[in-house]
């Protein structure tokens, strides 16, 4: 008789404990599930904003700076946003590959072979970078 009373009281306490626990945890869980979907939304907006903050002038300037430091550019006075790598800057096809690689590294992206092969001038490079949301 005494034993069953003890067992019952223990069970009651245990159940109360179990019942009490979710009551404490639920609000925390609720706020967590409420907050979680909002965080990616905020960061997505932020990364979009930072990508669009790459202005045409900034991209052009960075590419021209990069070409200025490229020792194979024969005539630095011909470095303008409309310069053609081969016709104006005197680069051969291997140099062009190197320039496009350097542009990839500058903007931390990887350009697929087909598209990298189609870039022959500063203009084309700027247009390509402006179309990349990942470029920064």
């Amino acid at each position, binding site marked *: 008789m005494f034993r069953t009373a003890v067992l019952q009281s223990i069970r009651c306490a245990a159940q109360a404990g179990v019942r009490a626990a979710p009551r404490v945890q639920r609000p925390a869980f609720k706020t967590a599930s409420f907050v979680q979907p909002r965080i990616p939304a905020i960061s997505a907006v932020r990364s979009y904003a930072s990508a669009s903050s790459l202005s045409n002038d900034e991209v052009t300037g960075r590419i021209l700076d990069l070409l200025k430091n490229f020792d194979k550019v024969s005539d630095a006075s011909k470095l303008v946003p409309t310069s053609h790598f081969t016709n104006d800057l005197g680069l051969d096809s*291997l140099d062009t*590959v190197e320039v496009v690689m350097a542009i990839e590294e500058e903007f931390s992206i990887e350009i697929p072979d087909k598209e990298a092969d189609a870039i022959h001038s500063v203009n084309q490079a700027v247009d390509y970078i402006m179309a990349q949301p990942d470029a920064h």
Partner: protein
Amino acid sequence: MSSVEILKTFLASKFLSPAELANNRFVVRATYRHLLRATSIAFKGDTETLQASRALAHQTFQTNAHKLEPNSLEASTAVAHAQGVAQILREHVVQGRKKPGAEDSENYKLNIHEHTQRLENETAGKLRGTTKSFGEIRDASF
């Protein structure tokens, strides 16, 4: 016989259509690009070696471009060689650096990256102590 072959390769290079020539050039440029990417993986942070390897790649590609006939066997062998070099640089070259503060000991910290080839224990055990030639590594597919 050899003169006939020379004539054949000469004719083949003569009769290459513009589209085929453009495609060949595209493949060579893509190979060069992949080789440069492989050097930046294999020699990351090691500016001196990186620049030396890129200079060597540029020089070799330039000499071969002048020397080899387009569409010749030698040209395609040279492209395959460059692709093999790129693969070996990416998968089989691992950088080691002596642990800071323990330069006297022969302990190196290896930079094993995502592209490094990793084999099953069994296969790796079989290869232990064996020497591989360039061609074997290039052609090997595990």
